[in-house]
Structures are given as C-alpha cells and as structure tokens.
C-alpha cells in the first residue's frame, strides 16, 4: 500500500496515541485533507517545526500528498541556525504547532522526485540536508517491515525525534502496516516514561545508544514487560557491555533484540543483525536489509571480496537519497548516487556479517550528535588556543602545548558551551610540543598513540 495517500484504508484503527488524543487512520486522512486547503496551490517548500505531535505528522503527510517538499526542522534549533536555513532555502510556508503560515508564493523549482529534506544528525559544520523521494521513504519502510516483526495490532513507543531519520522510520514502518504509534517525548528519567509501560500495552521500543545507556542505568532490564516483544537500537555503536546486558535481558524475557545500522542518506536503515546472532557477534551490524546491498571499497576504489579486509562501506538500494542540498536552487539538480559511500570503515567475516571499525573522516558522536573534529579545531583556534583535536565516540580530546594548561578548565567549560555538549565529554591534555608530519600537517597518528598510552595507563 502507498504510504501517505492510502492511509484511510486502515479505517478506524488507531494510528497515533498521545496523552491528549487517539487518532484513527481515517482521522489522519481527513486532517490531511483539511490541512491541504491551508497550503499554496503552487509547488512549495514547507518548513515544518518538528514538534513531537500528530500535527507535525499531518503537516508532513499533507506536504508529501500535495506534491510539495517538506523540510523537518529540529524544534529546539537555535534561532541563528534557523535564520541560516531560512536564508539558504527561503521556505514558502512555515508550519509551527500545526499552523501553516505562507511567507511567499514564488513557485519552487525542484526535481519532481524531491518530497522531503532531513538534516543529518550533526552540528559544528557537519550537518547536511539530505533530499529524499516518496519512493525512498516507501522502499525503506517496506524493507524495515520485511525484517522487523511489525504487526498491525502492535503498539510501538514513538519517542525518538520526528526530524531524525531513525525516529521518522519508526513512524513510516508502522503506518505502512496499519499499526499504532504512541507518541511521547518524555525523557526516560521522567516518572511519566515508566508509567507509559503500565498504562499502555507497548509491544516494541526503539532507541539510540544513549537511550539504552540511561535505560540500563535506571534498571529497565530488571523489570518485566508483559506486552513487549522486541526492541531495536541504531544511531551509533552500543558498547559491548551494554549489548551483553541487553542480550541477557532479551533472552530472559524471550524478546528479540535488533542491532541496526543506518544513515539519513539512506532514508534511515541499511543493515541489521539477526537477533539470534547477538550473543555470538556483539559488535556486528549484520547484513544489508531486504532490497539493499552492502559492499566494501579499498583506497584504489576496488571492491573487496575477501573477508576481514578493511574498506569503506558502500550501500546500494531504493532508499539511497537523491543528493544533498545546501540551498533552494540545489533542489533542481540531483546527484542520485547509485552507491552511497557511508564514510564508515568496515570489514565482513566468513558469514558475510559486517563490522564497523572506524570512520573515514574525522567525526565523533556525542549523545547521538555528530561533531566534526576539524570544526572543533577551528573553534579552538578562534579561541586563541594553539592545539589539535582528536576524539572517539563519547569523548573529545584537546591537545595543547605547555603553558596553556592553566586555562584548561576555563577552556573546557567555554568550548562545551559553544558546542552545546556536557563538559565531561571534553578532555584537555598538555603536551610539550604538538607533533607534526613531514609535510607540516598535524600528526594525528602520533597524537592517537599518545592518547592510547595515556588512557590505558
């Protein structure tokens, strides 16, 4: 069935539950028809402030049904960042709290396939806008439904942000099956989160590594959930310790635990590990989703055919994006990559299961957000500090020369504020001198060795 246009076929079944309302599929359809009358006739770019509400989804579905291009924007975005988006893309309509306000009527010149734009989960110069088609969304939702045991009578917890590819994929895969999504944005450290499991027969949950870190810390795995059948994790690498804990929890309560891999550039999902392999292959992302294909390419751009060889992970499938857009005019010119180069370095084992070992570019992920180390380095220099930046997931290391460490604590707090992260993620290290390579570039390998030694001692 067609994702956005045929919703009414599920009739009076409930599509969304929120603390305030229960919305049936027929209701969704009629609310979309009503919303359509508030949008311009000409093809338009519609910026949707993605609050965690049914209204956000109605605005999204309506935009797509009416042939417009929707842009889902983080509702907590800083004003200056929003201003930049408006300057670059000049949206025709702004939707906030479900209300569409037309800003201008200049027809959008865009490729007919473009339906949605999502931002990659980045900041500090690394965020990009990804253009997706209805076919991308439909294909990825169908693939997800082909490997996850989503049933029409399911009630999933939709707690991930709607502007986030993984969060949105939870919605699309469930409405494709006519299931129900409980929309809730309460934090897991809020009492209300735990009450949801008592009030509703939740059958599945989805989380990023940080969600599971907090859930395990709060003892989620020590309780019983009579309706829960499975849970999924994506959005970064979960520590093996947590995978072990969650795999035990899954085994004890006869649940399926799906570790998955994806990127906004692939609409959401690219790979998943079969739940029965979770104990044996804790750090694997498994194999390509149904309809997709994964391969590895070495530095000479040759395909790697032998197991255990490192190369860049590339993906092909109907869910691969139309291209990136940095400004409004880019919507008319698609790059349509056949193979998506993920930027992740990986290998596969004898059974064809893939493992990520690192990233090609200098990025780290902190609490699910991507940060460019080079951008942080520039920020450091803007602060008048001579230094280099390294990092692994959950930590950024700032290496600076002697004599400057007296201001390290102040620097740490200031940078944390500028980056919008908790200061505990930043470590400042004092070095006698900063190692450089023969051609005068930062010697990151030497710095990395230094850090490995320091952290292991």
């Amino acid at each position: 069935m067609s994702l956005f246009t045929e919703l009414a076929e599920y009739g009076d079944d409930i599509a969304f539950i929120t603390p305030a309302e229960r919305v049936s599929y027929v209701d969704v359809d009629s609310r979309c028809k009503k919303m359509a009358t508030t949008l311009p006739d000409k093809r338009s770019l519609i910026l949707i402030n993605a609050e965690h509400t049914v209204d956000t989804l109605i605005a999204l579905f309506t935009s797509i049904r009416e042939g417009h291009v929707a842009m889902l924007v983080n509702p907590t975005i800083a004003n200056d960042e929003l201003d930049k988006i408006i300057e670059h893309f000049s949206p025709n309509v702004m939707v906030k709290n479900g209300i569409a306000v037309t800003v201008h009527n200049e027809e959008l010149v865009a490729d007919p396939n473009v339906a949605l734009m999502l931002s990659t989960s980045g900041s500090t110069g690394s965020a990009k806008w990804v253009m997706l088609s209805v076919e991308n969304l439909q294909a990825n939702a169908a693939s997800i439904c082909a490997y996850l045991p989503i049933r029409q009578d399911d009630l999933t917890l939709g707690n991930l942000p709607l502007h986030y590819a993984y969060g949105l994929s939870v919605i699309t895969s469930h409405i494709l099956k006519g299931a129900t999504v409980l929309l809730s944005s309460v934090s897991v450290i809020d009492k209300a989160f735990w009450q949801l499991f008592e009030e509703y027969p939740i059958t599945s949950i989805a989380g990023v590594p940080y969600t599971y870190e907090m859930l395990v810390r709060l003892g989620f795995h020590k309780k019983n959930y009579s309706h829960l059948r499975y849970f999924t994790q994506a959005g970064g690498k979960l520590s093996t310790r947590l995978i072990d804990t969650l795999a035990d929890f899954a085994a004890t309560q006869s649940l399926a635990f799906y570790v998955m891999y994806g990127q906004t550039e692939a609409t959401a999902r690219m790979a998943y590990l079969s739940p029965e392999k979770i104990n044996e292959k804790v750090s694997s992302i498994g194999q390509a989703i149904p309809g997709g294909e994964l391969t590895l390419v070495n530095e000479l751009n040759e395909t790697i055919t032998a197991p255990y060889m490192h190369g860049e992970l590339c993906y092909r499938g109907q869910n691969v994006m139309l291209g990136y857009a940095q400004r409004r005019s880019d919507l008319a010119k698609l790059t349509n990559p056949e193979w998506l180069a993920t930027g992740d370095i990986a290998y596969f084992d004898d059974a064809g299961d893939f493992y990520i070992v690192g990233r090609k570019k200098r990025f780290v992920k902190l609490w699910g957000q991507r940060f460019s180390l080079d951008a942080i380095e520039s920020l450091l220099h803007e602060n008048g500090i001579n230094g280099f930046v390294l990092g692994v997931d959950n930590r950024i290391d700032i290496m600076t020369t002697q004599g400057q460490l007296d201001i390290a604590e102040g620097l740490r707090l200031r940078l944390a504020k500028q980056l919008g992260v908790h200061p505990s993620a930043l470590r400042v290290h004092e070095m006698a001198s900063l190692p450089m390579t023969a051609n005068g570039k930062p010697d990151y390998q030497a710095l990395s060795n230094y850090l490995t030694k320091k952290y292991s001692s």
Partner: protein
Amino acid sequence: MSNQQKLTEAFSQGLGIESKQVTDALTYNTIPEWDSTAHMILIAELENQFNIMLDTDDIIDMSSVAKAKEILSKHDISFDA
C-alpha cells in the same frame, strides 16, 4: 570534606556549573545545564562522592538539590551541620 561540600562538588562537576550556583532551590530543567544528560552524570558524581548506589526511583525523584539531600539522608548521609 563535609557532606555539604561533597554535595556541592558533585553538583558543580555533574552539571558543569560554578559551586555558588548550587543552592537548595536549584531544580531540574530550570537551568540549561541541568538536562537529562547532565542528570545522569550528576547521579554518577553523587554515587562516587558518597560511595552509594542509587536506584531507579532515587534517580527519577532527584529533581532538586533539596530533594537530593532528602534522598541521600535515606542512605544515612546527614546534612545537619
């Protein structure tokens, strides 16, 4: 270090704020620094400082500095001085 000093230290480190900002009235989600991420780091700091293990309800209920004292007192940590 007195228990009050330990508490102040834990909040200051956990939330990344200055010691003088740590008052009984300081409440979760009322300053940008005390969000859900910082809350979990704060919990780890408190557990370290006082050498205790906090359970789910303690963590969820710890919505202010005053409330933290109340919860810690259940673990025989007193703030009378």
